[in-house]
């Protein structure tokens, strides 16, 4: 009997011990602190999609400004700007991270919206973070270099940058101020005077020489046939020469436009590479990943 009771007691201890152990493991794994630690690990490893999911689970059980801010930051990184704005608006007032949240809000507008909307946002001081006002002015000037409006004078433009940044940006400012575009009218007029000259002006030397030879040979054939009293052939070659002469003028204007498109493309590509290297002058936060 005592052995049976001893056995029952032993079994009771084992069963309760197991149940207790499982409950503790389950609680620890999905506790708020564990979730935050895991989400921060994912965030710092730049796995933003899963980090957002984990931070959202954290927010279901507790209010956490840092988690909310990280969600907004991660959504910006994933180019989901509208969602980022919605998440960050909750931190604008009565939060320790309100200035940083407003900066991230402007960041989502900088990357997500066009120049005019971004300019309007800055002009009307909507949710402007005073601590980062100089940063936002720099980003506005970045956008000035990427759109088609005329640039302000250099003293106004560089007033927001420090001396090192000014030195680096001077090259892009001059490229934007004097891009070296070709004028379509000039190209067309040059080709009207000398067939192919407009294409050579637009950096299409081979096409220019071909145009000149084409028009020249047809004109020569027309003149030659008229001189030898072959009027029908003369008029055919005259018509062809006039046709290709007109086509050459048209093509020269189009070649100038294609040249300008190439200039614009290469400038934007180089400038965006430069800005990516500087994080577009947005500051890095030292509290995010330690």
């Amino acid at each position, binding site marked *: 009997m005592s052995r049976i009771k001893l056995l029952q007691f032993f079994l009771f201890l084992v069963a309760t011990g197991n149940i207790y152990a499982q409950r503790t493991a389950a609680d620890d794994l999905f506790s708020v602190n564990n979730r935050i630690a895991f989400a921060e690990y994912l965030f710092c490893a730049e796995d933003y999609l899963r980090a957002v999911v984990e931070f959202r689970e954290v927010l279901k059980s507790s209010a956490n400004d840092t988690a909310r801010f990280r969600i907004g930051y991660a959504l910006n990184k994933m180019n989901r700007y509208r969602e980022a704005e919605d998440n960050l608006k909750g931190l604008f007032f009565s939060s320790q991270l309100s200035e940083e949240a407003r900066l991230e809000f402007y960041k989502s507008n900088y990357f997500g919206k066009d120049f005019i909307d971004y300019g309007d946002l800055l002009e009307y001081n909507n949710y402007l973070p005073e601590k980062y006002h100089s940063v936002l002015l720099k980003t506005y000037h970045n956008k000035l270099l990427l759109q088609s409006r005329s640039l302000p004078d250099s003293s106004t433009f560089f007033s927001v940058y420090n001396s090192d940044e000014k030195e680096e940006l001077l090259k892009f400012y001059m490229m934007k101020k004097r891009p070296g575009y070709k004028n379509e009218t000039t190209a067309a007029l040059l080709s009207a005077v000398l067939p192919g000259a407009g294409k050579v002006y637009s950096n299409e030397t081979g096409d220019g020489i071909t145009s000149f030879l084409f028009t020249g040979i047809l004109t020569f054939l027309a003149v030659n046939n008229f001189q030898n009293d072959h009027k029908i052939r003369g008029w055919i070659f005259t018509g062809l020469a006039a046709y290709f002469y007109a086509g050459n003028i048209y093509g020269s204007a189009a070649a100038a*436009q294609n040249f300008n498109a190439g200039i614009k493309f290469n400038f934007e590509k180089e400038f965006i590479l430069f800005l990516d290297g500087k994080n577009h002058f947005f500051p890095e936060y030292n509290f995010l990943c330690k």
Partner: protein
Amino acid sequence: MIKIIFLFVAFFFLSSLSLAQTDWIKWDKAEESYQIKSEYGRNYKWNRTSISSTVLSGAQSLYYFFISDLDGKNCPFHPSCSVFFIESSMRTNVFKAALMFADRFVRDTNLFKRYPHYPKHASGSLYDPVENYLLNQALVKYFPREEIVE
């Protein structure tokens, strides 16, 4: 019982005889075409929505049938010169399209290093779209020369 078995065996034997190959009736080889199928099929239909489209699509089909299909794929550009003319006449008018075609024709005959000036198309030709010659700067698309355009 024996009759049933006999009928079954006879049926089986006769059916196998009818399907088996005999010496005097051979199976013919399957008619197989080894021609490589072209990805870029021709559309010979005539577009009858208007007089101009009927004339243009008719001329295009006749040109394809009598000249292009016999001559083969010789144009170094994509779209080819005939397609370029048709597309430009649909986007603008016949006169402007004629000027664009004249320019395209001269560029096609260019003997001096045209390859660095055009990006490559996935078909292997040089990419030269109609949009770049409409004299509308907003429509001009620039592609880096090393890029392959789909």
